[in-house]
């Protein structure tokens, strides 16, 4: 099962023979967007006359037209933020830099770009708010009709928090922690080739990653049936969650197509547009943190205010307002929690469900709490974790989530052994004695997968979405080959390899007769409303669906073969007989090929016996994750099916000459249940780690006070490259999930392990100075400021009060 199969898709992808959106649409018209240079401004007028007169221009589209042609997007939030008015293009007011205000359609991209420069927009700048905490003071409102900048807020309280504080031996307070804004950097930017056909069908060839949900936003806004939308994908060059926010742009392209006489329209986002106007990850500030502890370091309660920043329009938010609670206590047995969660709108790019979506922020918060408390209590960070890790599985968290399997203490022990923990402690101390700044840190990351959309009812009881599902279809071709279609939307996750592997293994046939027709097609391929590739669920939902479809096909093959071979079904099995895939008896004495069976059903149908009339050899199965609706009042219920985990241990040194954070040694141990393909799992672990290193060390989407994005090109944003990556020792443990048919768990988000481990190691390196670092990202210059006692940013105020003599 877990041999390192070669990836089926690599040959075409590595040789540049994939088919991406930008490879299509040869005869399409091209659209260029005019975007706002202001973060917040009223649009006085938009003059497209010069653009329309420009060479090659077919038509233009303005926000004002959009407001008459479409409905505003539905909002997930309950009142009052359900009143947010969000169109695919700004009609009369822009709320973030890069928000589209007009579109120009021309016969080539270059002509469209030339003409777009001739669109004259008269803006009246408005006051800007870029800080979420400040935004909640409501001095500058983004959406007046909402009456507040809060998109959603609620108190989450579980257990007996007051009692735990009263009984605590020590109470630690931390004034502020800050998780910064960054994003993923897919090689391929957003794109689509969209045709609003004269028939009414809207064909969207694109790189959306969660098409089912996007269609729920687009169809009502366009006043069409979701069935009229044909959303298709092919190869996708990375998605990482943020491609979910592509749908407003697809709508612009659709409207342009109709206006251009139903001609196909191609839109490929450029890199600057991507950095400015696609989707960013959630930024979160944690305030007024109070932690109750026992003398031995056991954390008994945590209370805090979390202020999330969703940017100018909520879009997929405020779902992040509840998604974090999938991992409310992180990897700890903590039972009493009081979190006042508030989400603010600001004049910045809207956020999207970026890899590790919302859980990563919460786990970072608790990892920081654990490390800071450990230092305050004088307990080693590994010991502190061992005392607080969840001791047994399955484990029901205070909010009713069920962690399925895993042994975090054993993972930590493994990671410690891999880097030689004791030796490193000795080396660290020796290096410190020479004046070097060395730190060792731990990060325990959770990658909760297959989420229960019922949690949306905690945000809004009227949410029409619950559970989770995926569909797959397996059919037997007339040549005996097998074709698999699944509703997933691979973006580099090797679904073709794994799908083929599952089918081949289940039927006992060679992998090379299994063809996986990957890519989504809402009209012609199979899917459900939850279909897509996001939130670490392929290994459970898609594999579950493929498995179900294979079982149906197997049953049909056996039925036909039993009749042809005059045997009982129980005497027969699928496999390879005489070198050919087929059905036969255990001794192989009697057999018939898949090809012959398929021809009987599909080709030579005259005289087909009545008993076989329901047989199709083309079987669809819908996997539905076993979820109930949570209790929205208590905010209680099982929100995800599987919990993959990673423990990262890193040793860093702060270079005294450059303040570079240099990684001296690093181990990442992953447990995602039963591993279906080690090559792929390891690739995901290393790739997710690269994201984490990038976030901690390099990538930071910074805005100035006027809402100008200061990192709108690669030379400023500077995403991580190979040369910035340390060597990673990779380890794996397998704790099969009891909740999935083969014990596998979703994985791939990584959960931000290096952000936690590096924060922890930095704190350790600077422990002697007494500084308690409070940010998830430090540039060398930031560290220099902390170390030279310059501005207070970057350091938390921490106090520890012993309430009881020991």
């Amino acid at each position, binding site marked *: 099962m877990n041999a390192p199969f070669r990836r089926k898709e690599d040959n075409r992808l590595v040789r540049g023979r994939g088919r991406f959106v930008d490879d299509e649409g040869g005869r399409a018209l091209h659209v260029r967007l005019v975007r706002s240079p202001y973060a917040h401004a009223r649009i006085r007028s938009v003059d497209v006359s010069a653009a329309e007169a420009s060479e090659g221009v077919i038509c233009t589209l303005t926000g004002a037209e959009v407001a008459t042609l479409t409905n505003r997007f539905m909002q997930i939030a309950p009142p009052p933020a359900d009143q947010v008015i969000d169109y695919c293009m700004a009609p009369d007011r822009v709320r973030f830099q890069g928000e589209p205000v007009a579109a120009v359609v021309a016969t080539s991209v270059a002509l469209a770009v030339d003409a777009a420069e001739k669109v004259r927009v008269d803006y009246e700048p408005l006051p800007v708010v870029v800080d979420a905490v400040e935004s909640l003071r409501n001095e500058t409102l983004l959406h007046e009709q909402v009456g507040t900048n809060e998109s959603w807020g609620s108190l989450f309280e579980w257990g007996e928090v007051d009692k735990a504080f009263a009984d605590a031996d020590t109470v630690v307070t931390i004034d502020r922690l800050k998780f910064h804004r960054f994003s993923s950097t897919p090689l391929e930017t957003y794109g689509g080739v969209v045709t609003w056909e004269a028939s009414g069908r809207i064909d969207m060839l694109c790189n959306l990653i969660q098409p089912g949900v996007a269609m729920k936003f687009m169809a009502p806004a366009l006043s069409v049936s979701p069935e009229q939308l044909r959303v298709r994908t092919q190869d996708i060059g990375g998605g990482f969650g943020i491609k979910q926010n592509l749908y407003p742009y697809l709508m612009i392209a659709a409207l342009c197509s109709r206006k251009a006489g139903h001609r196909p329209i191609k839109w490929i986002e*450029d890199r600057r547009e991507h950095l400015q106007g696609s989707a960013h990850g959630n930024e979160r500030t944690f305030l007024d943190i109070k932690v109750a502890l026992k003398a031995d370091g056991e954390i008994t309660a945590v209370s805090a205010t979390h202020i999330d920043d969703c940017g100018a329009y909520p879009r997929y938010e405020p779902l992040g307002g509840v998604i974090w609670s999938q991992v409310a206590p992180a990897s700890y047995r903590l039972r009493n929690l009081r979190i006042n969660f508030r989400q603010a709108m600001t004049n910045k790019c809207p956020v999207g469900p970026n890899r590790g979506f919302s859980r990563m922020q919460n786990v970072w918060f608790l990892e920081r709490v654990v490390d800071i408390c450990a230092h305050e209590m004088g307990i080693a960070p590994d010991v502190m974790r061992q005392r607080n890790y969840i001791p047994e599985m399955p484990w029901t968290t205070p909010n009713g989530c069920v962690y399925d399997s895993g042994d975090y203490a054993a993972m930590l022990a493994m990671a410690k052994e891999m880097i030689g923990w004791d030796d490193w402690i000795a080396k660290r101390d020796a290096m410190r004695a020479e004046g070097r700044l060395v730190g060792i840190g731990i990060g325990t990351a959770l990658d909760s997968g297959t989420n229960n959309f019922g949690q949306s009812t905690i945000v809004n009881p009227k949410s029409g979405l619950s559970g989770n599902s995926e569909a797959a279809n397996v059919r037997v071709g007339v040549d005996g080959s097998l074709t698999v279609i699944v509703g997933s939307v691979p973006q580099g996750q090797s679904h073709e390899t794994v799908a083929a592997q599952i089918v081949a293994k289940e039927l006992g046939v060679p992998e090379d007769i299994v063809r996986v027709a990957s890519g989504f097609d809402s009209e012609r391929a199979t899917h459900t409303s939850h279909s897509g590739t996001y939130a670490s669920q392929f290994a459970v939902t898609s594999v579950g669906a493929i498995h179900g479809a294979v079982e149906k096909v197997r049953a049909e093959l056996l039925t036909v073969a039993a009749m042809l071979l005059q045997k009982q079904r129980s005497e027969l099995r699928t496999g390879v007989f005489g070198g050919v895939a087929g059905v036969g008896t255990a001794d192989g004495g009697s057999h018939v090929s898949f090809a012959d069976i398929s021809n009987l059903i599909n080709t030579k149908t005259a005289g087909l016996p009545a008993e076989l009339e329901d047989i199709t050899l083309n079987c669809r199965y819908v996997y539905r994750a076993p979820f109930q609706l949570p209790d929205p009042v208590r905010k209680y219920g099982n929100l995800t099916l599987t919990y993959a985990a990673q423990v990262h241990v890193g040793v860093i040194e702060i270079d005294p000459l450059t303040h570079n954070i240099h990684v001296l040694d690093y181990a990442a141990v992953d447990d995602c249940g039963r591993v279906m393909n080690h090559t792929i799992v390891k690739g995901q672990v290393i790739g997710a780690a690269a994201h984490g290193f990038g976030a901690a060390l*390099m990538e930071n989407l*910074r805005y100035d006070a006027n809402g100008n994005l200061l990192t709108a090109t690669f030379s400023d944003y500077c995403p991580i490259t190979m040369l910035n990556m340390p060597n990673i020792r990779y380890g794996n443990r397998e704790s099969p999930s009891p909740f999935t048919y083969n014990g596998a768990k979703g994985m791939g988000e990584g959960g931000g392990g290096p952000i936690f481990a590096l924060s922890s190691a930095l704190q350790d390196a600077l422990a002697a100075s007494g500084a308690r670092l409070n940010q998830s990202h430090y540039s060398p210059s930031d560290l220099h400021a902390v170390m030279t006692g310059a501005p207070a940013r970057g350091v938390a105020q921490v106090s520890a009060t012993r309430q009881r003599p020991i």
Partner: protein
Amino acid sequence: MYPSRFDYVKAASFAEASAALLQGGDGAKVLAGGQTLIPMMKLRLLRPELIVDLGGIDDARDIVVDDDVIEIGALARHADIGNEFRAQNLCPIISDCALGIADAQVRNMGTIGGSLAEADPCSCWPALLVALDAAVLIEGPGGTRALRVRDLLRDAYTPDLAAGELITRIAVERAALDGIGAFVAFKRAAPAYPTASVALQINYDGDRIAALRLGFGCLGLTPLAFDAASDMACGKTVTPALIADIAAAASAFVEPIDDAKGSETYKRSLAAGLVTRAFNVVEARRTGAPAGETHQYYG
């Protein structure tokens, strides 16, 4: 990411290019490796109406090393220069500088002449060439002239070139390259300009310093040459105390500005740090000890 419309001519000689430039007036620009010009055009931060491509000038890519002087054609590419000096095991400070620029794609296209003409205070060649007090040959409507790089680069992004003037060659006195040197830089990532860079060439007399050349990139509005360091160092052996003194003086000497790559105070500290690293690499090279990496990236 599409440039605005422009006309294009390919010149066969500097004289032809110069004439085309003059004729094109303000809207004309020459194109060498295109590694600065093309990105600026794609972002439409530059909108030249005429591009005069130097790529057809065949005799301007040569690298000539003789006893007195090293001459490099303006169109020699970073990769070619770096590989040539590395292969000949000559003047490591030059190969450090060339092969530390950006990534392979940029090095395979970008030219030394383009780097100087761009006059970006963060570029690497300018920092090296002001430290070595190199000269450039310039050809233009008024004929040819020689100019010290220090005089060419008196302002950020505006080289001292008259209309129609082109850089044709770069000349470095061999004497400036006597001894052992290193070019070190601290960068966020390879395909990013340095946060700061330091060029250090030391000529030894026994184990005493006979001459020392020190230059900085990204630490002012122009590349900076710190000639006073030579006076501090001459006649002394390299000791931690001497390194600390020069590093501290360098930190006070540089003129960094606050920007996204760091605060002014941080960059002063970095200047001292990189001077120290440059000394360490040079000393290691002198003694045959393993020398650390000259270019360090985040992480």
